[in-house]
C-alpha cells in the first residue's frame, strides 16, 4: 500500500516524522513493559508505520503489532515532542484492520447485535448463563466473568422533577455487564438534585468498532446515537466511561453532522458530580485507586475527590489489559494478544492485593470489569467500585 492509498493516515505523516525515537514513550507503555519487545513500544510502532508508508514492510505484519496497542495514551503524556501518538495509533488500527485475517462469525454476530441494542441486551445474560451451565465454550479468560448483577437498566430508571436535566450515556459495559454501576450513577445524580434520563435506544459509542477498522459501523453508531440524543431535552450529556466520552467528542463529529452540538454538552460524570456542592464523609477504608487510561487529569482528580482517595496508589504504570483481553467487535481471538491482556490484568490484581486495600476504585467500567474478573478468579475479598459508587456511599451511609 502506498502513501497515496492510505491518505487518511497521511495527515499524520508529518507528526510521524517528528518522532525522534528517543524512547521516552516506551518507559510508559504497559504493553512494552510487559513484553519488552521493541515492536510493542510506541516508538517501535511509529518506526513500523514509517516502514509501511514507504512500502518496506507487509501491512499485515504491522497490523498484528498495532492491534496489541491498548490506546491508553500514556505514551503521549511522556512524549517530549508532543507527537499525537494515540490519534496516530487509533487511525492506524483503523486503516490496517482490513489487512488482518478475515473476520469470523463472531465479528458478524457482533455487528448484527451492535445494530440491534435490544437483542444485545438479551444476548449478554444469555451468554453468561450458557457459559455457566457449560453449554457454551469461550476463551478461558472470558469465562471467568464476575457474577451478573440482578439489576437491569431500563428506561424506568429515569428520575424526575427539578434540577438540571442530564442524560446518562452508560456505554456497553455498564449497560450490560455491570448494570449496577449505571443504576448507582442514576441514584447519585438524583441525590445531587438532577433529573437523570437514560435513553434505552442509545447504542455503543463505536470506538472499538472504529479501532477494529469498521469505520462504517462506527459512523452508523455515531449517527444513530446523535439522532436519539438530539431528540431529548437536556442540559448535560454525562458519561461514566472515558472511552465513550472520547468517542463522543472526537469520533462522532466526524461522522454525524449534529454531533458537535452534542459534544459541547458532554462531560465526564465525575467532573459533573464534583462540581455539585455536596458534603462528603471521610473514607476510613484503605482504598486502591486505579487510574483509567483515557481519563484526563482533571477528571481523574474529580474521581479521586468523589471516592475520597487521598494518595495516588496506582502510579499509572499498570494497565487493566481489558482492551486486549476482550476482543472488540468479537474478532477472532489472537492468542498472544489475549495473553498480554490477561497478564496485565493479573499484574494489576497483584498490585492491588499487595497494597492490602479492601476496596479498589476506578472511573472506567472496562477497568472495573477486569478488576472484578481477576478478583473473582483469585478468590479475593476485594470490592471493585466505580468512583460514583464510592461517592454514593459517602453521601448515603
Amino acid at each position: 500500500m502506498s502513501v497515496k492509498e492510505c491518505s487518511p493516515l497521511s495527515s499524520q505523516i508529518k507528526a510521524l516524522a517528528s518522532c525522534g525515537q528517543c524512547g521516552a514513550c516506551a518507559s510508559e507503555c504497559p504493553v512494552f513493559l510487559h513484553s519488552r519487545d521493541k515492536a510493542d513500544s510506541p516508538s517501535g510502532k511509529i518506526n513500523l508505520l514509517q516502514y509501511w508508508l514507504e512500502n518496506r514492510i507487509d501491512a499485515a505484519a504491522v497490523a498484528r503489532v498495532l492491534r496489541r496497542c491498548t490506546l491508553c495514551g500514556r505514551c503521549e503524556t511522556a512524549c517530549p515532542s508532543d507527537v499525537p501518538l494515540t490519534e496516530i495509533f487509533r487511525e492506524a488500527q483503523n486503516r490496517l484492520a482490513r489487512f488482518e485475517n478475515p473476520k469470523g462469525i463472531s465479528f458478524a454476530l457482533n455487528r448484527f447485535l451492535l445494530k440491534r441494542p435490544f437483542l444485545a441486551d438479551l444476548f449478554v445474560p444469555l451468554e453468561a448463563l450458557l457459559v455457566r451451565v457449560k453449554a457454551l465454550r469461550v476463551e478461558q479468560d472470558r469465562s471467568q466473568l464476575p457474577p451478573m448483577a440482578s439489576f437491569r437498566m431500563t428506561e424506568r430508571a429515569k428520575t424526575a422533577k427539578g434540577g438540571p436535566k442530564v442524560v446518562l450515556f452508560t456505554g456497553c459495559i455498564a449497560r450490560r455487564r455491570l448494570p449496577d454501576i449505571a443504576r448507582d450513577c442514576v441514584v447519585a445524580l438524583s441525590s445531587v438534585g438532577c433529573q437523570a434520563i437514560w435513553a434505552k435506544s442509545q447504542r455503543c459509542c463505536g470506538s472499538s468498532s472504529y479501532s477494529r477498522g469498521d469505520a462504517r459501523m462506527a459512523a452508523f453508531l455515531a449517527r444513530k446515537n446523535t439522532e436519539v440524543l438530539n431528540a431529548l431535552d437536556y442540559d448535560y450529556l454525562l458519561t461514566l466511561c472515558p472511552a465513550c466520552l472520547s468517542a463522543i467528542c472526537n469520533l462522532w463529529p466526524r461522522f454525524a453532522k449534529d454531533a458537535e452540538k452534542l459534544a459541547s454538552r458532554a462531560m465526564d460524570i465525575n467532573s459533573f458530580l464534583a462540581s455539585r456542592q455536596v458534603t462528603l464523609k471521610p473514607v476510613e477504608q484503605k482504598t486502591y485507586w486505579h487510574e483509567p487510561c483515557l481519563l484526563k487529569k482533571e477528571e481523574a482528580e474529580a474521581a479521586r475527590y468523589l471516592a475520597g482517595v487521598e494518595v495516588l496508589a496506582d502510579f499509572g504504570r499498570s494497565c487493566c489489559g481489558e482492551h486486549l483481553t476482550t476482543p472488540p467487535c468479537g474478532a477472532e481471538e489472537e492468542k498472544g494478544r489475549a495473553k498480554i491482556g490477561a497478564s496485565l490484568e493479573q499484574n494489576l490484581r497483584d498490585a492491588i492485593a499487595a497494597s492490602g486495600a479492601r476496596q479498589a476504585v476506578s472511573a472506567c467500567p472496562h477497568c472495573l470489569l477486569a478488576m472484578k474478573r481477576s478478583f473473582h478468579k483469585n478468590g479475593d475479598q476485594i470490592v471493585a467500585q466505580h468512583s460514583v459508587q464510592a461517592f454514593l456511599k459517602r453521601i448515603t451511609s
Partner: protein
Amino acid sequence: MKTILKELARIAPGISSDAAVCAARVPIRLAREQGILPPVAVVTPTSLQQVEKLVKFCVKEGISLRVQGGGTGKITDWPKGERWLILSMASLDRIIDLDVENRSITAQAGVTLAKMEKAVSEKGLMAAQISTLHQISTIGGCLAVNRPAQARYGSIGNFLEKLTVVTGKGEILECASQNEAPGAQTPVYPLAPIFCGSAGNLGIICQARLRLLPAPPLRTGFFAVFPTTLAAADAARMIALAMFTPLELEFASPLCATLIKSQQSGALLWGEYAGGVAETAAAIAKAQKLILDHDGALLGDAEHFKTFLEKSAAFLESRSRSYLLETVTVPCSRFSTLVEGVERIAQDHGLEAAFFGSPSIARLQVALFGNSELSHQADAEIFTLSLILNGTYHDDHGRVQSREAWLASFKNSEEETLQRGLKEIFDPEGVLSCR
C-alpha cells in the same frame, strides 16, 4: 536461511523472524540513509549457555550479531547485508542474588535499572544508577557504555565488581574488576573494565555483580533560575566544586528551558543532596548562598524540575537526528568556560544553541539549531575547545564519524594497535561489530 533459523530455534527457542518484530529494531532513517536491512531474526536467549551456543553458531556460519538491551537505540555499528541477528537480552532479567550484608547485587544483563532500584530500596540500599529511561534501561546496556551513575558517583563502572561475558569467540569469561571487595582473592587479572564501556564490541555482557550503597538518611534538593547562562554555569561550577558533592546537579540553558515549555525564563539549575542530616542541611544552605550570590532566585517544586529535566534530555536526544547534538566533558573547574565557549561558537556561526548537562561531572549536551553545514563546523570547534580544556568528546548518540575523527587525530598508533589487538583476541571474526 530457513535451515539457519531452524538451527537457531533449536539453540534458543525464543526466536522471532516476524517482519514487524525485526523491522522495529532498525530505525527507518538507517534504512533510508544507509540501506540497513532488518535482521533475519530477533533471538531472545534465556540462559548464559544459550548465548554461548548462539555466538559459536554465528561464528561458524559467519552471521553478524548485535546485542540490544532496553532498546534505547545505542547500537552504532549496524551491519550491512541480510545475514545478521539481534540478540535481545529481555529474558535474561533475573536478579540472582542480593547480598545485603556485603552490599552487592548479582543480576543478569536484562534487569532494568527500575527493577534493580526497587529490589535494593526494599532492603534499605541504593544502587545510585540513573537514566531518564530507567524503566527500560538495562544493567547490561549501562555497563556496555559505562553509563554515568548518579553524578556524585561517577559511572556504573565504579560499582562493578564482577562480570560474566560471552566473547565474540563464544567463550564464557568470568572476570573481576578492581572494585572487588577487599580481601577477595582474585585469581585473574581484573579484565572487567575492558568490557565495561566497550559498547559490546568485545563481548556480550550477560551477568554482573554491582556494589551497592546504604540508602541516605536525608535527600533534599533545590531549584533555581538565573538571569544569564553564564551566571548559572558559574554557580553550578562552584556548587560542584564545594566540599560536599551533590548527588545530582543539572543545568539547562534558557533556550533549552523554552523548548521544554518551562514557565521560567532564564537558565535553570536543579540539585539534589543526599547523606547525613546535618551535613546535607549544611551543604544545601551553602548551595543556596552561592545561588543568591550569582543573582539566582530560588524556586520551589524541585521534584517538578527533575521531571522537566528528564523530559529535556529526552527532547534534545529526540532532536539529535535532525540537529547536531553531542556530549562534551571537561574538568569540573572549567565548566563555565566551556559554556561560555559553546555560546560564543554558536553565535559566531549564527546558530542557536540549546544545552543542558550535569555540571558536577562537567558534562554538557549541546544541540545546535540552524544551517546544517555551519552546525558541523561549529561542532568541530566545540570538539577542539573541549580538548583545549583538557576534556573529551563523547559519542553518545551514534555519530560514529566524530569518534573516528577523534581516534585518528588524538590516539597514538600504539594505543590504536593495542585496541585492535584486544579486538583480535576477543572477537577475531568480527561477529559483534564490523571493525
